[in-house]
């Protein structure tokens, strides 16, 4: 299983801050497609995806137990 986090505006669209999903073996790009289908309102293209608290590449592949996160454009400071 993979843990998926949603933050800020994305969280308001998904209605959940995190969920577990059977996405082991998916690439990061496939994870984005999966989320875009599940939550039609989210702009997954504008978000970066982190895996295990580090920005990931589209071709990176998810391993069981990984923690993924959709990172919408940041606005700290």
């Amino acid at each position, binding site marked *: 299983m993979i843990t998926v986090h949603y933050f*800020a505006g994305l969280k308001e669209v998904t209605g959940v801050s995190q969920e577990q999903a059977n996405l082991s073996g998916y690439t990061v790009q496939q994870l984005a497609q999966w989320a875009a289908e599940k939550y039609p309102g989210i702009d997954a293209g504008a978000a970066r995806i982190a895996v295990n*608290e580090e*920005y990931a590449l589209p071709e990176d592949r998810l391993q069981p137990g990984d923690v993924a996160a959709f990172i919408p*454009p*940041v606005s*700290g*400071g």
Partner: protein
Amino acid sequence: MKTFEIVTHAIDPQHYADMVLRPEAGAVTLFTGHVREWTKGVRTLYLAYEAYVPMAEKKLAQIGAEIEERWPGAQTAIAHRIGELAISDIAVVIAVSSPHRKAAYEANEYAIERIKEIVPIWKKEIWEDGEEWIGDQKKKPEGDGV
């Protein structure tokens, strides 16, 4: 406290300045970003910040390491507050010490730029007639952020 941290309480900036001070430091720059009441003629009531806390703290530490590499001898401490903040509250503090002042100024400004690029923290502005998550400050006209 930690040198790079996300906090949920009021920030004491002096604490971070003290963390970077050492006998070889001739200069310390301390930047504090505050909640501003007016942005482009719109009055902010308060802000709400959210973070992906463990990743945000890692990214703050990464910025500190980048600074040490670019400005040898410079030391950095950064904290960002999350939760609801009122006007004039400190959202972020950046302390940089360095033997000479030029590096302390440059590295400090570099840190706030990098925070706005890579650290997973989000700001929601709450006005009298609505609220909005702010994102992608890079796309905004210059001078909009702090």
